[in-house]
């Protein structure tokens, strides 16, 4: 479904991604792990069009999406969450989800101002979808609260709801469990499983190994902008290269 081919990216001479290739199959949950600074978020940024790679291609469902701007990528069916929660603080929880929910609805500024039936139907549909997403993540009761005053765990869930409202085929989750309590992590795992059960393919960047091992059928390991291992969770856990990357074992010779 997602085909990343030899993607390279450097920032002012510092190499962030050096020829990263990976494949994500339709319907799977792919884990992407690696030490801090290994390029995981950067990879997401490339796939979602925030960065244009210096080299390599990204293909989604057979079509090239390299270098498309973020909105176009969203249009192809890829949604993402951010590691550092980019919510809209001055909007309410519901409004945060309405923004993506309105994306595909008919009617625009003029339609809204004239009160056209098409526009109003669009709002109704968007509100319904937004409510459903909030219900799904368990934030329905907080709909009118300002997003800026949410607790950390709630912010994570709102971030997720926002991505879901785009009805993506592929969901990129950037450390959805970061900063959560143990209970919240279990809840988050459950949410991700349910999303997967609905037929959404998922790429998951995460540091919490329990979450990763429990959810992912395959794992890709990055280190210093390169893929150092790919495989099933059990294999990865035993792979010496992976262990070395995390523990910083001294190189031989």
């Amino acid at each position, binding site marked *: 479904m997602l085909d990343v081919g030899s993607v390279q990216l450097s*920032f002012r001479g510092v190499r962030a991604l050096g020829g990263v290739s990976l494949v994500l199959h339709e319907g799977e949950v792919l884990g992407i792990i690696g030490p801090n600074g290994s390029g995981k978020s950067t990879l997401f940024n490339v796939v979602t069009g925030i960065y244009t790679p210096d080299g390599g291609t990204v293909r989604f469902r057979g079509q090239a999406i390299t270098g498309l701007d973020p909105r176009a990528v969203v249009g192809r069916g890829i949604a993402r969450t951010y590691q550092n929660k980019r919510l809209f603080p001055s909007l309410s929880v519901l409004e945060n989800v309405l923004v993506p929910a309105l994306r595909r609805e008919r009617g625009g500024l003029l339609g809204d101002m004239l009160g056209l039936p098409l526009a109003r139907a669009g709002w109704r549909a968007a509100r319904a979808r937004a409510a459903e997403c909030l219900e799904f993540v368990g934030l329905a009761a907080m709909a009118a609260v300002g997003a800026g005053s949410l607790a950390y765990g709630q912010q994570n869930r709102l971030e997720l709801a926002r991505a879901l409202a785009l009805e993506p085929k592929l969901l990129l989750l950037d450390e959805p469990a970061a900063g959560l309590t143990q209970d919240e992590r279990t809840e988050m795992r459950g949410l991700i499983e349910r999303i997967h059960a609905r037929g959404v393919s998922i790429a998951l960047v995460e540091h919490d190994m329990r979450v990763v091992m429990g959810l992912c059928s395959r794992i890709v390991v990055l280190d210093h902008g390169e893929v150092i291992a790919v495989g099933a969770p059990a294999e990865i856990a035993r792979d010496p290269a992976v262990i070395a990357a995390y523990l910083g074992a001294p190189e031989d010779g």
Partner: protein
Amino acid sequence: MLAQLLVGGLGTGCIYALVGLGFTLVYRTMRMVNFAQGQVFMAGTFLGLFGAQQFGLPALPLLLLVAVISFAVGMLLERVVFRRLYASHEVFVVGAIGLGVMIENGFRIVYPEPLPFPKIFGAGVYHLHGAVFQKTYLWILIVTLVLVAALHVMFAYTRTGRALRAVASDGEIAATMGVNVQRAIGATFGLSFAIAAVAGVLIGPLYFVSPDLGDMVGLKAFSAAVLGGINSVVGTILGGLALGLMEALAAFYISTDYKDLLAFAILVLMLLVRPQGLLGRVVPVKV
């Protein structure tokens, strides 16, 4: 004729360079634009007028006095006003504009009519390659050179200068190295005020002075700084000189009416095409 234009252009160019330096110094340190800079320039002119008329001060002492007073005022205003405007770029810009409006209209109340400025640089006139120019132009050029050289020496070789550069580069790190950041910022504002005010005195004898001067010169100096690079000292100076020359040529060869348009067209064009200016560096933003 060309020589005459060049002399005139160079003269105004030096003024733009000096006032522009004021913008640059503050921008480098605070990443903010002090839009009251033009009014500071104008205030310097009137301060010089006052000193020359009331006390009959000759050129050099007058320049020094104006510089010192403006430096002090700059530090004071930073402490009292500017410090409370650092919340965001927009807040700072709008606040500075408000301050500028206050200064300009305050001076309008005291000096409602344009006034002649005493010939503090003497009434002499020079001839060079067919160009005739007042002694004032020589003073403008020399004082500009001296100021720029002095600034360079200060920044490169003195401890104060290095401290200011450190704060401009990274305030937090500078603080950990023992630099009194607050005072350095105050000194930066003081410097920018002093330089602009001195430019104001320099230009006094050339025209009738009125509070309206501040607006136009300020905006044009700003355009010049953007042209050369608002975070580059050398860029701003060259931008000022370039703008002065281009204006003089445009006024003669195209039209006097539209010569003002040049500065603003350059401003808008530069901001759209290359906001960091011809000699500036881009400051990268992390996503």
